[in-house]
């Protein structure tokens, strides 16, 4: 248990600087947007608006988890931590990182509101009947999905090296080219939209359904990560 606690603490240590930097940038952007809104409109009552916290922090978590795996895995292995203990510790780290990012989200949104910048949540823009509880559940599940996705990608890159890095780098572009072509040839347009609508719950406008989909995907990603990590050779 002590080792798992240390794994979480050491994993967090690597995030401290980048999280502070990100917070400073977001606060600076908020103040700048308020300043620009006031100077262009000539009234202190003019408000600016920001609605990208979930996406911004989600991308930050995703990239952060891609970046932190190799160092943590090698360091902890040399300290005698087994893959299973590392996996357990990392799952706890994912949960802790998601919660801490949610708290950061709250703090940053509070600072924005104090500065007179209107904050819109993604949840309330896309979904209906959204309460505070819905926003928390949706944002948490989004952050957990982002972290498990980043972790899985970093594991794939660690295990398969350069060929996997190249594949993952070019695959979004190739998919964006191939999907419309296949969609036209096979008349998959409606089916694709149906899948996207279902996954993001765009038809039902239920944030809980979208959260459930994100959480389920995160579980699948975590399971795939376990399959990859349980016999993963340490690159020495």
């Amino acid at each position: 248990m002590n080792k798992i606690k240390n794994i979480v603490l050491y994993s967090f240590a690597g995030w401290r600087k980048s999280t502070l930097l990100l917070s400073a940038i977001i606060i600076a952007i908020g103040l700048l947007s308020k300043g620009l809104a006031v100077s262009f409109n000539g009234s202190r009552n003019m408000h600016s608006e920001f609605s990208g916290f979930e996406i911004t922090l989600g991308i930050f978590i995703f990239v952060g988890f891609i970046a932190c795996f190799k160092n943590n895995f090698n360091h902890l292995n040399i300290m005698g931590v087994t893959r299973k203990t590392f996996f357990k510790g990392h799952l706890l780290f994912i949960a802790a990182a998601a919660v801490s990012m949610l708290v950061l989200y709250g703090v940053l949104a509070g600072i924005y509101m104090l500065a007179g910048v209107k904050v819109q949540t993604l949840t309330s823009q896309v979904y209906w009947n959204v309460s505070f509880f819905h926003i928390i559940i949706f944002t948490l599940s989004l952050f957990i999905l982002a972290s498990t996705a980043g972790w899985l990608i970093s594991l794939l890159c660690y295990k398969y090296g350069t060929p996997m890095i190249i594949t993952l780098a070019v695959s979004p572009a190739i998919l964006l080219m191939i999907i419309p072509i296949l969609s036209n040839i096979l008349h998959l347009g409606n089916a694709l939209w149906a899948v996207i609508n279902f996954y993001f719950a765009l038809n039902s406008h239920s944030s809980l359904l979208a959260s459930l989909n994100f959480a389920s995907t995160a579980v699948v990603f975590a399971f795939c990560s376990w399959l990859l990590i349980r016999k993963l050779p340490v690159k020495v």
Partner: protein
Amino acid sequence: MGNILEINNVSKTYGKTAALEAINVSFEEGKIYGLLGRNGAGKTTLLNLITNKFEATTGEILLGKESVWENPNAQSKICYMTEKNMFPKEFTVLQLLKSSFDFYENFDLEYALNLAEQFKLNIGKKFKTLSKGFESITKIIIALSTDCPLVLMDEPVLGLDAAVRDKFYRIFLDNFARKPRTFIISTHLIEEVSGIIEEAVIIDSGRLLLKKPVEEMLQMGYCVAGKSNNVDKYAEGRKVVHSEMVGNFKTITIYEPVSQRDNQTAASLDLEIVPVQLQKLFVHLTGD
């Protein structure tokens, strides 16, 4: 004393290449072993298998009676000083020592800080900015400050100058006297470690070639030195594995135990018999 580590029929292959083939060897508690072998012999692979870096293709490695593979209990009893750097690049030396304190039970932080002072290691410096020698010193300090019953060191003196190496050997022996445990030292500086290791394990092309106490190994051969023509006379019919000549003075290494009769023959030819060097024996045993 009982065995602390048993390696039973362990093989490791990478694709079609066999790095280790059916290795069977055991290590006793409280002894210092030298793991010797030429480049690519499989020494580091063996150490990596013991420390859970990857899984053996066949066979098992037991620490006490437990398998080492994915076993937190077994792994917490092993400290591995790798040749390559596996620490986070951004950590300072002090952070590394503290992280070792957090992960190893009974890590002696005070002793580690004391060693850092003795080696004049700046603990405030980031690990990535250290010279090769100070990187090795940091890793040595961590290995010696743990209380693990099995300590593995892969090229511990890499990048250290002669004076620091000498200091390391003294501190190492002092540490061993204070806390006797099993050390396995993999190194190419055979002659230097021959004074501290009790038993040598030689691996050649992925196979276990020999495991013997150093004293016994040194009795497997001897050197004869003297005037070149007398040495040549002495060498006739004997298994000479190495020869060196400086002017008219010749030294040969013979791969046979020295007998009373050999001593008499050497004396009659005005030759001197001296103990063989472990390195010469190693070079002979591993093929060149």
